[in-house]
């Protein structure tokens, strides 16, 4: 079963919501779940003083955006699972930074897992600070799918 289902089963939704916010790194960055749909997920990360990457501008660190994009891609993979949830590990992730986020602005990411095979999930993601038509970063990743009992 490798097709992305039409709906997100409850068990998958619960697992996705859990991983979006309670994984230690996600909790440490204050991630908030925005939405989960079949093969799609969205998470936001608030601006915080201790997460600044450039003290001259107070812009949030690229590393936070990296974690957010990676995590949101993982969420989209989880949301692409059918009735049998699986976990994923990042194989590769490419991120393009179009511009820095606005000073003291948080970041929201949305990811789309558009194909899952037995072993690999393919994902695209975008991140923005204020307006989702004015992106700060885009990402493309491949994730290894770890299915139970295989």
């Amino acid at each position, binding site marked *: 079963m490798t097709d992305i289902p039409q709906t997100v089963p409850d068990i998958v939704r619960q697992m996705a919501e859990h991983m979006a916010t309670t994984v*230690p790194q996600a909790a440490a960055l204050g991630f908030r779940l925005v939405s989960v749909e079949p093969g799609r997920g969205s998470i936001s990360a608030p601006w915080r003083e201790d997460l*600044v990457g*450039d*003290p001259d501008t107070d812009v949030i*660190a690229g590393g936070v955006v990296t974690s957010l994009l990676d995590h949101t891609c993982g969420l989209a993979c989880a949301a692409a699972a059918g009735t049998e949830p699986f976990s994923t590990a990042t194989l590769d992730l*490419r991120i393009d930074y179009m511009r820095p986020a606005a000073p003291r602005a948080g970041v929201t990411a949305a990811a789309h897992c558009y194909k899952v095979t037995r072993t690999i999930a393919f994902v695209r993601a975008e991140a923005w600070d204020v307006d989702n038509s004015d992106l700060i970063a885009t990402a493309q990743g491949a994730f290894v799918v770890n299915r139970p009992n295989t």
Partner: protein
Amino acid sequence: MSDPAEQLEAFLQRVPYVRFLGMRAELSGDEMTAILPAAPHLVGNTFLQALHGGVIGAFLEMTALAQLSVTQGSAKVHKTIDVTIEYLRPGRPLTTYARADLRKVGRRVANVHVEAWQEARDQPIAFLRGHFLLSDPK
């Protein structure tokens, strides 16, 4: 402020996110080794006790930026244009090390490769290739 050790210390002290990660660095001449001690808030998978993939990517990116600040002698933080992170092994809850190789530093753009490992240098856990926009061209 052109002493590499001072330059590095200034970079590590100035960037709040470096302190959030708990990242340190050691310098041998102009070659830097970045060090990321394991910490509970860096974990991405409690079941496997694996470091978060984003943390590994962020650590590699900060290593590239720190090495650029040492070599370029600028207190300003350079801007990331793009990064590609390749994951080879799970990051275990151990100290992670990274070294950056400045493959080309042009007038405006630098191409940097970074390698991360834990217990054995010949068993890398991740690589990063990236382009960085130099904020203070020489």
